[in-house]
């Protein structure tokens, strides 16, 4: 049932985040859309030094192939260097705990996961990773994958706005994402987190005697606040600890809990407003914002309806309300951090988590969420155009056959890379090796694993239990396909519409509320229809079975 607490939490967090995101979108416009700014005096010399040291040209306009190639090569190089850090951490500095290197398949999974902004973790950080690995493999990739996502989102927006007649230059977008957006915001966020009780040290772990005679505890300590700041801001989600944000040192109080929820919502929300600013019509940004938040809001209401009590798997200091709020938000924004155990939730909450990950644009991850929303807009306009017998148009641009094909290709990437490996896992019996049985609960677990991987979310049921060669390699491949194929397709669309002729719109108006309704319905129909059989076999069946034994049992004597 909806309670006053639910309402209080949502109004408080949404209100603050949306207002801050509106101002951030103004700032992002200055950062990425070429306007001069007072901050140039501070940032330009640093950025020019980075371009010079990197030997890259930040001023040349790039076509979609060149933009994608620069993005992909950079991400690949980053994954490779992180792979070696993880495999050979025992021979590298800052390892006072003397942890051995990761196995090849676990290291591979980890770098594919973090470079693709997924942050699926088949390990427990506090007992596996050295300080250097946490900093120079994990935090490093959390920054760069967020900057990559932001760059790709900005490029697609720039292309659709068409003012610059180009999608831009990757290095320009990437470097500015880091210097002007992610590093300054993470700096502020890390200081707030330390003040709220998140540790920041490299002093090593110690065992201390606790109050009761004979009892000890390991005092974990590390560069935790700096990691958590970028993990939430960059919609990464991979925690310092295996228990992620349920672990008190990563999320000490309700205040830090709500602050971290706000952090993950902040930039993706601002990008929706940035879209409106860039195309020169705030109503277009409002359409994306309202559609994304409508779906997110519906998910929240459904999750709140099934009351979550402080029971096994829920931390007392957060309570049921903000645990459900976090779980819906972390999947809606494809962050993937968790402040409770997924097993603690009613299957209905898990179902809403699935919706967030299957849609990916409600509002989705940093940069990428806006990109997916634009994909849904294209598909929707095409469908409505078919029904009304009109040429599909968006922002005065004629949508051509190639655009629709590419948008559909991006949309279909997702079901293909989720459904095939899920079926494959059961076909070869890989689920048994990770202790999962072949019933509806087990099906949900494996389906969730690949959905989370494909959506670059990273929350999961398996955790360190997923550390088998099959799941490491399979989810690794899924994470990269789910990341780079849609980016490639959307960049291709954006590049071709960037130079296309624009005429005053004759077609469907997209800046009004009725289009918001059409878009929301269309997104639900497209995703639910695609995944319906899988959802039925997993969380829906689980819910009905639970219903059968609880309510049904009492009333009908089943």
């Amino acid at each position, binding site marked *: 049932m909806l309670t006053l607490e639910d309402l209080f939490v949502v109004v408080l967090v949404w209100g603050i985040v949306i207002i801050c995101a509106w101002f951030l979108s103004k700032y992002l416009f200055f950062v990425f859309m070429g306007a001069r700014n007072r901050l140039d005096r501070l940032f330009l010399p640093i950025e020019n030094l980075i371009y010079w040291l990197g030997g890259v040209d930040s001023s040349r306009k790039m076509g979609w192939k060149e933009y994608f190639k620069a993005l992909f090569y950079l991400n690949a190089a980053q994954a490779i260097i992180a792979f070696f850090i993880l495999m050979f951490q025992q021979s590298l500095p800052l390892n006072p705990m003397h942890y051995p290197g990761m196995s090849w398949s676990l290291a591979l999974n980890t770098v594919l996961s973090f470079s693709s902004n997924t942050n699926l973790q088949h390990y427990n950080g506090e007992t596996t990773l050295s300080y250097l690995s946490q900093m120079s493999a994990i935090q490093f990739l959390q920054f760069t994958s967020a900057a990559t996502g932001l760059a790709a989102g900005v490029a697609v927006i720039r292309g659709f706005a068409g003012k610059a007649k180009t999608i831009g230059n990757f290095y320009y977008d990437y470097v500015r994402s880091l210097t002007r957006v992610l590093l300054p915001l993470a700096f502020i966020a890390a200081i707030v987190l330390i003040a709220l009780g998140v540790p920041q040290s490299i002093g090593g772990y110690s065992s201390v005697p606790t109050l009761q005679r004979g009892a000890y505890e390991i005092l974990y300590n590390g560069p935790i606040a700096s990691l958590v700041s970028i993990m939430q801001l960059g919609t990464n989600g991979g925690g310092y600890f295996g228990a992620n944000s349920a672990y*008190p040192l990563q999320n000490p109080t309700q205040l830090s809990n709500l602050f971290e929820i706000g952090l993950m919502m902040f930039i993706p929300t601002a990008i929706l407003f940035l879209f409106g600013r860039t195309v020169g019509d705030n109503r277009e940004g409002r359409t994306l914002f309202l559609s994304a938040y409508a779906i997110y809001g519906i998910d929240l209401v459904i999750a709140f309806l099934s009351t979550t009590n402080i029971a096994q798997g829920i931390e007392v200091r957060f309570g049921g309300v903000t645990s459900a709020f976090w779980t819906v938000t972390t999947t809606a924004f494809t962050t993937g951090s968790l402040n409770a155990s997924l097993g603690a939730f009613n299957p209905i909450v898990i179902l809403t988590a699935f919706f967030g990950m299957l849609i990916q644009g409600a509002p989705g991850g940093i940069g990428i969420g806006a990109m997916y929303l634009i994909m849904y807009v294209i598909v929707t306009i095409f469908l409505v155009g078919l029904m009304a017998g009109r040429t599909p148009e968006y922002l005065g641009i004629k949508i051509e056959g190639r655009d629709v094909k590419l948008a559909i290709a991006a949309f279909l990437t997702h079901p293909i890379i989720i459904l095939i490996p899920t079926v494959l896992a059961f076909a070869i019996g890989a689920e048994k090796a990770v202790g999962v049985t072949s019933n509806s609960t087990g099906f949900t677990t494996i389906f969730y694993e690949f959905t989370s991987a494909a959506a670059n979310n990273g929350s999961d049921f398996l955790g360190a239990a997923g550390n088998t060669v099959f799941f490491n390699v399979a989810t690794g491949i899924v994470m990269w396909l789910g990341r780079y194929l849609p980016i490639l397709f959307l960049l291709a669309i954006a590049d071709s519409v960037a130079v296309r002729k624009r005429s005053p719109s004759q077609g469907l108006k997209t800046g009004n509320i009725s289009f918001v309704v059409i878009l929301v319905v269309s997104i639900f129909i497209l995703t639910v229809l695609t995944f319906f059989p899988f959802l039925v076999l997993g969380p829906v069946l689980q819910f009905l079975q639970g219903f059968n034994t609880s309510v049904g049992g009492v009333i009908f004597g089943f």
Partner: protein
Amino acid sequence: MTRLKSVSGAVRMTVISLIICGMIFPLVMTGIGQVAMPWQSNGSQVYFDGKSIGSELISQNFSEPVFFHPRNDSASGVDPDITMADAMSQVPRIHNATGIPEAFLNATLIKYTQRTLFFFGTPYINVLDVNLYLVEEFPAVYSQYIQ
């Protein structure tokens, strides 16, 4: 040639990003944390008799009947808090083991009550805080149970 150039650009940009984001940033934050907020930065440790007895944020192993006990099942496994209802249910056991009046124990719980949503939500208490208070109030009772 262009491929070689884009690969070299990728490698060099990778090294620069690694140094800035993966080394300078966390180390600068560590410096700031250690200087400006050393207590939080080092894990919010609680001191008793001048010695650290662990983090206020991490649940401790309390198994003797004279203490309030934490819960063992939660998402993190080290949940430092228990609900008020859970704490209340432990009052008779502690009273029987220590002789401390139930009224005093209940008053202590009320004194240490926090709520999940600041001023409303589920009431709960931090187990270590309450146990530490009892140890300080009744040193004679507790001396044989502590380090």
